[in-house]
């Protein structure tokens, strides 16, 4: 069975190195300055390239480095992944666009139309990363005052409607959040493959909703035993519904030719540690963020305190934005840890590293080929 490997696009800008303060100098997220890439300065003027051009470069790099596609995450302060995927659709050939979105902000019929058109534009390369929101101030910023558990009810209804209209036959629905009468995709748009659903959320409400809708239950990386327990819970819940979701993990990777070189990279990043980051991330009602906070020790004497098991390090959120856990080690070690996750039942990976462009090549060329794979058929032997 093949395992799907995605490589994230850094929509927040691209941090050129963990060795520098959090300055996103790919794109204009961190302002324009010396060494900025896309837009860059030529003869004292902006050169007309934009961050979209860098995102296109990351997509193309991921495609040629062997990844199936990439996650386009969604945050209040970044570009929008639907608009970005639509803009870049024509510039890749096999790259899948995993669009992250919150179901509350779009009408499901609108989402169905956008999705079907994107499937037509890409030849069926759209994937969903359904997120139901982390709560707190950012949720209100979006204009969303729906409570935590209700957001998952809304997500469930949203996906019911989206699937209901997809085949082009008139669909009626009367829910708490959405209502449709005779809604359907038009004949020209119907008949596209339905996007695979990656579903995120760690709470009971999330697991319940995931059981009904997830093709892949997506989690941040956690210590392996905790991850196994979490997956078992999802498996158990889904089994009651007669469903068997697959599992996916989102992992940051620092892989180098030696273990020492990889940790040296982390050590240089540790010079810019921000110890309050985990507290701030846990301010909303996100259960996933609260879980992470539980693993970060109260007193940290150095970066190696955060290696919770070999090569599994939970300090990433302290040296750059984003989730806490990632893998740090030699190419071989990282490949072994990924293989262990496969044995634990992981069917798909969303990997990331800074800077996203160069690390896509590094991980694609150095780590992925080391993964234990089904031996390829030898030409002439299997074919009549």
């Amino acid at each position: 069975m093949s395992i799907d490997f995605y490589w994230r696009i850094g929509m927040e800008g691209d941090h050129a190195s963990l060795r520098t303060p959090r300055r996103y100098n790919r794109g204009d997220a961190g302002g324009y300055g010396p060494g900025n890439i896309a837009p860059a300065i030529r003869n004292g003027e902006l050169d007309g390239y934009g961050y979209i051009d860098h995102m296109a470069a990351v997509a193309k790099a991921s495609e040629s480095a062997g990844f199936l596609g990439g996650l386009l995450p969604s945050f209040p302060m970044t570009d929008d992944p639907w608009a970005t995927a639509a803009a870049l659709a024509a510039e890749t050939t096999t790259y899948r666009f995993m669009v992250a979105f919150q179901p509350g902000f779009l009408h499901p019929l609108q989402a169905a139309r956008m999705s079907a058109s994107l499937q037509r534009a890409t030849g069926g390369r759209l994937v969903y990363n359904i997120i139901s929101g982390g709560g707190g101030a950012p949720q209100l910023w979006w204009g969303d005052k729906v409570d935590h558990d209700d957001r998952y009810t809304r997500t469930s209804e949203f996906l019911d409607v989206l699937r209901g209209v997809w085949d082009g036959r008139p669909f009626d629905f009367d829910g708490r959040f959405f209502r449709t009468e005779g809604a359907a995709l038009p004949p020209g748009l119907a008949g596209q493959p339905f996007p695979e659903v990656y579903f995120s959320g760690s709470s009971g409400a999330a697991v319940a909703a995931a059981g009904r809708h997830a093709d892949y239950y997506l989690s941040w990386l956690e210590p392996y035993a905790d991850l196994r327990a979490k997956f078992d819970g999802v498996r158990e819940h889904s089994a009651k519904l007669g469903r068997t979701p697959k599992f996916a993990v989102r992992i940051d990777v620092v892989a180098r030719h030696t273990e020492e070189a990889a940790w040296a990279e982390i050590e240089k990043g540790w010079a810019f540690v921000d110890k309050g980051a985990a507290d701030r991330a846990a301010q909303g009602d996100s259960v996933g963020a609260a879980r992470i906070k539980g693993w970060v020790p109260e007193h940290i004497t150095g970066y190696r305190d955060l290696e919770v098991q070999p090569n599994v390090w939970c300090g990433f959120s302290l040296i750059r934005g984003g989730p806490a856990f990632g893998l740090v080690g030699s190419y071989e070690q990282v490949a072994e840890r990924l293989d262990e996750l496969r044995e634990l039942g992981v069917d798909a990976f969303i990997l990331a590293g800074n800077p996203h462009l160069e690390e896509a090549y590094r991980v694609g060329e150095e780590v992925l080929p080391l993964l234990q794979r089904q031996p390829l058929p030898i030409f002439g032997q299997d074919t009549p």
Partner: protein
Amino acid sequence: MTDFYWELPSRGDGRRVASGLNTRGGFGADRPVTVATDPRPGKLGPFDELAQVIHAAELSGVDGVIAPYDPSGEESWVVAAAALRQTRHARVAVEFHPAFGTPVYAAKMSATLQRLSGGRLEWRLKVGTDPADARARGDRVTGRNRYARADEFLTVARGVWNDSEVLPGGFGGTGYDFAGNHYDVIDGGFRGILSGLPFPVVHLTGNSDEAVRLSAKHGDVHQFMLTDTGYETSARTLADRALEQGRSVRKLLRLPIIARETTDEAWARVERLWREAHPDGVSGDSRALARENSQWSGFDRLGYDQPIGLIGSYEDVARELSSFRDIDGFVLTGRPHIEELHRAGEHLLHLVDPAGRTLAGQEVHA
């Protein structure tokens, strides 16, 4: 300077009246497989044909294209994003209904598109849709309330938008609060890369009193259609209402056109399409729908969404377009789009707008 927009096709394209016979863009029936068929993989996808139309618009020098809201066609935001990425100069107006989602989300998607296009995105907000579409969307808002919701929508979208650059601030907003009948925002507002961008130019449509009132308050541009009763009364009301608020709204006229080298050639084209639409011949003479000044009121019978458009030689059509003295520009369309775009770009636009479309000091021969 006269503004020219071109309305893009949203459900395929071709030279025939019956949509089922128009196979460009992946709508309609499959093309028949013959000895001339190239079976090798990697042929065009639906958006490759649409991209050619967009490219033709850019090469023809039209100022902007419109991606229409069409429940039966391609989704307009996907079309608009692709169009902006494929062009350097053309403005792209995305048409959508306020109930598509929240105004914050519309503004968010728009900020991305403004960034990647250098500020070329525009909005055409479609407030009313046909009853079947409203039912399908489960839209509980009807009648005049649709305009009240659109008013809130535009208010919130502008409210979270910051034209001037605001320093990044993580997940923080810029203190914009709104508590309305339809939308709620607490400490919203765009910062960092989402700030310092121009808010999309807002186009609105419709001749009703509510439509004109909304446009006077929020519209930058109002698009009128030619009707039997004319657009002039609505246009004057709009100007007066806008002036009361210290505003002005630009006026565009939407028109399908068939323009050819000679008047006879243009009519020959109409007649061929008319025969295709009425193969039994019972609907009478197409010429019976001719009005004064090269106007013809049968375009809706040929698959267009409005009846009245222009037919004639390039000079006829240019003369008629130039006669609308109170109009700031036009939204034209015609099928097949690539061919008609090139005709308009090469033969028509400079006749209507010589000052904007010829090099200074150069004489126009036509």
